[in-house]
């Protein structure tokens, strides 16, 4: 069984348009930071004081939030200060270089430097929000409709990681097919593992279905949610486990693929105690 246990997944859906009029980046990030802090607190408040002390890291990842930082409209130190003014265990490092696979690479970094033998917790949040309400991010020929939201996953690491986490980059330019093939090879020796794949339009789903015909996959939710970037596999697990309450431990392969070919695949365990929180959608329209 995987030594990575999902203790909680929360998803805060965001509307395409966040505000009636696009405010300053400072105001946008104040609003988003409040939502992220609330989400983090809703998860950590379920833990005992003793368990909260075991939280070692909180990474914030994104695929499409870059323009406010790149153009110098806002700095990460400012956003970090907004988050960390609100108490313990808030996100402190922002990673978007690996696009939709950023959550896996941040997890790899943590595990690389993790010297502790005792069970410990870490938080990974994924935020994708159309801060400037740009058309490019509403719909894109690569993934069609986008879905926006904030996800926070609380993971427990209990033991030594062996092959639970795969972070790689495609070596070909057909990264979709290569990604599916890597998943197939990786899943071959694993029993009773269900795949939680990224959400893509019909033609890409068909390719995944054909290449992963012998694997069990959770349904693609692109029609319901659009492509929610790095959040997809976590939203997929959340959705499935809310509809089918977890009666005994189950294992999933959370899989994310970035446009530039980076991918993250994590084998995680869900238990009857895992908390799933689907929040009410926020934003303008």
């Amino acid at each position, binding site marked *: 069984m995987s030594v990575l246990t999902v203790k909680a997944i929360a998803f805060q859906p965001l509307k395409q348009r966040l505000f009636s009029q*696009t405010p300053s980046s400072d105001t946008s990030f104040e609003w988003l930071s409040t939502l992220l802090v609330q989400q983090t607190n809703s998860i950590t408040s379920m833990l005992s004081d003793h368990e909260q002390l075991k939280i070692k890291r909180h990474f914030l990842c994104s695929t499409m939030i*870059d*323009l406010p*930082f*790149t*153009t*110098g*409209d806002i*700095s*990460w*130190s400012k956003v*970090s200060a907004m988050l960390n003014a609100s108490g313990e265990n808030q996100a*402190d*490092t*922002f*990673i*978007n*270089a*690996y*696009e939709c696979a950023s959550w896996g*690479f*941040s997890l*790899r*970094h943590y595990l*690389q*430097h993790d010297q502790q033998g005792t069970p410990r917790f870490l938080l990974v949040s994924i935020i994708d929000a159309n801060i*400037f*309400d*740009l*058309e*490019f991010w509403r719909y894109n020929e690569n993934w069609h409709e986008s879905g926006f939201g904030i996800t926070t996953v609380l993971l427990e690491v209990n033991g030594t990681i062996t092959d639970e986490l795969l*972070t*790689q*980059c495609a070596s070909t330019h057909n990264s979709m097919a290569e990604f599916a093939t890597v998943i197939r090879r990786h899943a071959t020796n694993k029993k009773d593992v269900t795949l939680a794949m990224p959400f893509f339009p019909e033609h890409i789903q068909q390719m995944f279905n054909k290449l992963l015909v012998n694997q069990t996959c959770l349904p693609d939710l692109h029609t319901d949610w659009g492509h929610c970037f790095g959040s997809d596999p976590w939203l997929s697990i959340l959705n499935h486990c809310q509809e089918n309450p977890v009666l005994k431990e189950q294992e999933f392969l959370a899989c994310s693929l970035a446009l*530039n*070919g*980076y991918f993250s695949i994590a084998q995680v365990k869900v238990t009857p105690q895992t908390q799933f929180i689907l929040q009410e959608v926020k934003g303008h329209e």
Partner: protein
Amino acid sequence: MSNVIKHEYLGQLLSVPFENKPSAALARCMPLSSDNDFTVFANLPCSDAPVLINFIEHYQILNELVLLANELWPQELTILIRISMPGGMRLPASLLANNVLLMQDIQPEVEKLTGKVTHLLTIDDNFIRYQLEQGHNKISINLHSLANNQHVNFSKFIAKLEHFNIGAK
């Protein structure tokens, strides 16, 4: 931490990094369609520093620096690199290796890892690769090391920067 020795370098990209070599025009702008798209882009801040480098050249420099660092410190080296997105193209394999972390702002990780890893190399550049990017073409390179004889290696590493027209501030 008292047992950590810090080596510091502050430099500047002085001109194009690869003189007399053609440079691909890779700068792109996302397609703009709605009135709001144009309003947003018209109001974004911008730098007055010259654009001297493109994505390929930037990644080529980082790739060569990371490969050299891996040679100079073959064991127990952790590298933190500031990368501003969008990336424009696929990153070289050396930057995706598991002793490297790429992020928007390296400071939080520097604070966490200084003194925890034997050699912590940080590469923090603000080279502008297209018109909308903010920065002044500066680069800051630091080594936080628990070993006390790293001066020669650090100097060898910094010497490499001259090849790319990067000079000390």
